[in-house]
């Protein structure tokens, strides 16, 4: 059993689903002959043919809308955004056409929109964004964001099999940096279920995607000082695992909310509200947030480093919590 990278896990999930279900097809810019900007669908065109691996015009709104219509007609399209930043040009299709279709018409919309998101790769303001929070506030959508190859594979399969529009955010910083051995055979990771990636008792960090790894590094460091930090990986952002969050907070009594997206209006707010309402009595310290600075994602490495959460910021916040 070989180690599989995060990006390979995505490729494997797509290939296995294409084989399993003839209704599954992929569409997006440069996904055919080129195999996608990040080569997620390398060699798929030869394997599955141009009908199931559809190179599209440069038109995100049409890509998403076409996927929606095809899904309503019984297919299971998986649309790639070359970068998730570009989903904004198809925004109306996502939030008003796809998201509201079942509620208002009864038509099912089994489709996935997937693509790379996130920073720390010097991509600048338009190739580094974390657009997930725009969608988490939109009923009718599901939103997932895996942090490991296992979750990446299992969640993508679950997303493709789901009868609703699912937004699947891949963190491009993890693509080739994270590896693990994956079990043989088919498996899914259920949408809506988080996972404790590290158990602890002194404080809990609620997070997802690339920040999981940063949190784990900090937790390892602090462990040497005898402090045990729990790391909760939400994996799904909508719906999200409220029970897991509340359970962890009730056990650890101190909580840090962490995301790579910018602070104000970010997802940590939603989690904070949940906790402050439903685990209020268990809190021994204020709820803290660490997130990116409230700016566009700057390009220069020194600026992006300043902008993003990092080990120092997370450690400092945890120390504040522990010392409270």
């Amino acid at each position, binding site marked *: 059993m070989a180690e599989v990278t995060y990006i390979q896990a995505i490729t494997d999930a797509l290939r296995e689903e294409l084989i399993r279900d003839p209704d599954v*097809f992929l569409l997006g810019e440069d996904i055919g002959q080129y195999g996608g900007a990040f080569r997620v669908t390398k060699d798929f065109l030869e394997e599955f043919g141009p*009908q199931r691996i*559809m190179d*599209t*015009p440069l*038109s995100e*709104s*049409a*890509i*998403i*809308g*076409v*996927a*929606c*219509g*095809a*899904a*309503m*007609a*019984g*297919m299971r*399209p998986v649309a790639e955004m070359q970068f998730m930043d570009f989903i904004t040009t198809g925004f*109306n*299709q996502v939030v*008003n*056409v796809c998201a*509201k279709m*079942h*509620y*208002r*018409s*009864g*038509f*099912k*919309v*089994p489709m996935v929109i997937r693509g790379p998101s996130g920073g720390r790769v010097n991509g600048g303001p338009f190739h580094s964004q974390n657009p997930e929070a725009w969608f988490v506030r939109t*009923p*009718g959508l*599901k939103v997932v964001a895996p942090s490991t190859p296992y979750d990446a594979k299992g969640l993508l399969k679950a997303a493709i099999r789901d*009868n*609703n529009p699912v937004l699947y955010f891949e963190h491009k910083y993890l693509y080739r940096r994270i590896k693990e051995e994956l079990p043989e055979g088919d498996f899914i990771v259920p949408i809506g279920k988080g996972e404790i990636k590290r158990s602890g008792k002194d404080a809990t960090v609620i997070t997802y995607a690339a920040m999981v790894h940063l949190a784990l590094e900090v937790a390892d460091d602090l462990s040497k000082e005898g402090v045990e930090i729990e790391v909760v990986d939400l994996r799904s952002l909508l719906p999200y695992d409220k029970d897991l969050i509340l359970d962890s907070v009730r056990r650890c009594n101190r909580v840090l909310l962490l995301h790579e997206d910018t602070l104000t209006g970010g997802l940590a707010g939603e989690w904070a509200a949940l906790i402050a309402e439903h685990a209020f009595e268990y809190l021994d310290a204020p709820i803290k947030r660490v997130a990116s600075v409230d700016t566009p994602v700057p390009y220069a490495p020194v600026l992006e480093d300043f902008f993003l959460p990092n080990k120092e910021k997370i450690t400092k916040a945890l120390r504040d919590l522990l010392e409270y």
Partner: protein
Amino acid sequence: MPKSKSNSQAKSNPGFKHDIVDRKYEGIKEKDYLQLLYLMKLTRSAENRVVKLYRQGKVVGGVYLGTGMEATAVGSAYALDRKKDDALFPLIRDLGAHFAFGQHPKVYFLQYLNRANSPTKGKDGNIHLSDSSKNIIGMISHLSAMIPPAVGWALALKMRGSKGVTMNYIGNGGSQVGDFHEGLNFASVRKAPFVLIIENNQYAYSTPNTLQYACEKLSDRAIAYGIPGYQIDGTNVLEVFETCWRAVQRARSGEGPTLIEAVSMRMRGHSEHDDHKYVPPHLLEEWAKKDPIRRYEAFLLEKGLMDEKSMTELDQRVEKEIDDAVQFAEDSPLPEPQTAAEGVYAD
């Protein structure tokens, strides 16, 4: 300015000038002649009845009519064939397309009266009605947003080896929206079995065409996508039918999309609360002479396919159907409040 016509007024019209050429219209069969009239009358009658309900305070929100445009809505969708897997994506003025595609009038009233047993269960309003059992996909409000899904549906049919075709509509205003461009371009590159009707009714809400676009004919936009484009008289149901029928056959045989600009006039306000004052009265008078129902009646009378008697019978039949449909809808229950929380996600 013509006021809302009651059904009795619209009944018969000896002497109405029709200028419809009597020739062999491709795709049309004997029985279709009367059916087209029936469908247009059903449409106008249903819409007039909704206005009545609205004035009685029984309809909330906006009321949008296709008065003057019935020939476009009916003639186009009548060219489709549900048995062949076709799908319909109608717009705001296309009640006639619903009917031509086999929808029952009672569904329309259930929808406008937001009953629990309407296709949207009261969750979406007015003319936004879908019917998943009939492959009718109701619009969202954002104009042109349904074009890409209609193209996607068409491509799905193609992928599955079906010979089905999808038909979608857009206004002379809505065709300025980006999705018009993206959707039609996508369709043409992929040769989707897709027909798009531009309903050019001279206005977009209050905005005249001179402030919407600067090209000569909207049908010329077909050139931008390398597909055929036709500008036709949208008040002549036979011309609409024939042009759409050809486009549907073309799509069915794998040759790709067609763009059809059907020219007509929106004879009422944008919605029933709009006074329509921005339209010069002479324009409405001129267009009244091209009323799609009255001129087609005159044509059928002249052609000898109808007479005064059968005309009266038809009106009575339509009236009765609408009466029954309204009754059925009014007798139907409103949704239970808590159903608002249901159905956001499919299982």
